């Protein structure tokens, strides 16, 4: 077998592995959304946050909560507080990208708003977490976002 043929086969195998990983990552998780959310909620300090209503979710992210299988959104009522937590379960086959884009835009806007005069809040925004996995979208602005991610991945 020529060296080129071997390299071509290696590429094909790598591609198959890549596709497989991609498909498994995007496969809907069978876990109960409430259980996943509870796991995330207990992993971080949410004492400054309170659960927000559907209309407040729509105002913040521009999407109708009814369009998703599950939405839980925690944010502070204090306008000077940027910490928030959002978990969305997407309907099967739905594209997460529009929501992800919206969240990114929200973070950028907030970062611009707080830059220069609220270093602590800006710091939270710099380390925000946005994850799309298993049919869920997790968005966390917190002082310990990594704990939320660990809990989220474990719960899926």
């Amino acid at each position, binding site marked *: 077998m020529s060296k080129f043929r071997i*390299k071509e086969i290696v*590429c094909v195998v790598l591609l198959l592995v890549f*596709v497989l990983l*991609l498909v498994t990552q995007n496969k809907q998780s069978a876990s109960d959304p409430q259980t996943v959310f509870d796991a995330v909620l207990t992993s971080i300090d949410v004492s400054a946050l309170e659960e927000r209503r559907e209309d407040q979710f729509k105002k913040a992210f521009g999407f109708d909560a009814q369009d998703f299988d599950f939405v839980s959104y925690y944010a502070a009522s204090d306008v000077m507080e940027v910490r928030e937590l959002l978990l969305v379960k*997407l309907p099967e086959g739905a594209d997460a990208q529009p929501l992800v884009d919206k969240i990114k835009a929200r973070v950028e806007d907030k970062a611009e708003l707080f830059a220069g005069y609220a270093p602590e809040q800006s710091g939270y925004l710099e380390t925000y977490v946005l994850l799309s996995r298993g*049919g869920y979208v997790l968005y966390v602005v917190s002082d310990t976002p990594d704990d939320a991610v660990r809990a989220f991945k474990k719960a899926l």
Partner: protein
Amino acid sequence: MLFSSATFLFVFLPVVLLFYFVPLFRQNPQREMTKKNAVLCLASLVFYAWGEPVYIVLMLISIYFNYNIGLDLEAHTFNERRRKKIFVCAVVFNLLVLGFFKYFPFAVDNFSRLFSLEIKAANISLPIGISFYTFQILSYVIDVYRGKCRAQRKLLPFATYICMFPQLIAGPIVQYGDIERQLRNRRIGVRKFSAGVLFFIRGLGKKVLFANTIGAVYTEITAREPGTTGLVVAWFGILCYTLQIYFDFSGYSDMAIGLGKMFGFDFIQNFNFPYTADSIKDFWSRWHISLSNWFRDYVYIPLGGNRKGTGRTIINLLIVWALTGLWHGAAWNFVAWGVYYGVLLILEKYVFGGLTEKLPHWAKRVLTMLIVIVGWVFFSAESFGDAARYLGAMIGTGGLFDGTTAFVLRSNFFPFAVMCCSALGFFRKFPKLKDANIRLALQAVGYAAVLTLCVVSLVSETYNPFLYFRF
């Protein structure tokens, strides 16, 4: 990352240009060119990874696979059977990659509908620019197989060709044969760089000042409740879309060509005032020229073109145009849009050609524009149903006028008129000034004004979509 974004304009591009132009090997032009290619290739990978880091893996696998295919083809120059096998493997690999990422959900959806099954494809987002770079890769493999060009022996120039950021996500589709020499050696100078800057500003202006402005009008019109749009507003809306898609795509192509020039490359012109065409054939020789060329060279001619009789020519045209439609998107409305043009080209060639030839030039242009505008209804719609509803509004199902007709026309007429004049090429017919200095000064002021307006607009506006990204 969009070319028309502040991050690209003020961070990414200046940094890349700095690294690209700082000479490291003054005494050795060949090594200097390798360094330039390396900077460009690395910058392109960063540019691509900016939006979707995961798909960089797919691109790298594709690059390495096809690089080896080229070498493999050349290593078996005298074994035609083996060459054919390698070639078929390469084409199948590339089409499967494109098919899986772009068409698999569409195919699964149609299959499950046809057999009333409950199957859903994995939710995988479309890798940006996959249609463009797959076509470039195919052009390389086919050209090497045909012996039109030699296989690229170095991985770096090949990777640079595939992932070069100026044309990576929205073309023009550069055929390998057209750029092979430039990858090895290209002239980079002040004159070419300045021409590139002007091209880029022109494209940026088309995109930010024209396409975004007029696109917002169309979006607002289509966001209305079905049945509430009057005939006049519906026609105005689709005319706005007609302008938006032209300025959006040709603007992006101009930016790509301009960036290419800044880095010393000459890409082919992708648009040549398509709305001044006087026939459908003429339109397609002016619109997305690189795609038309690709389909002509790699599909239509290999299928036999027009050399195998009328029947076969008709079939070939329909195949090419259905594929052209499908290339634009995995949805039936795109296929319908492609076939629409296929049928029209066949009619123009074999049925109405003689009749339309007798029409005055202005009438031919108006007729062509009408056909193109109706085509955009299929193209812009989310589904067949939406297209049918919009066509209904265009023939008056929502009445002649609605409550907003006067407001919509009055508030948008001036920008609309300016854009029409620009799209129809009226501005290029202005008399040229004889005094070169005055001409240069005016040009400088004009371009500076456009750039300033674009920057102001980018900073303050949030509406900055790009229509051809989804392809």
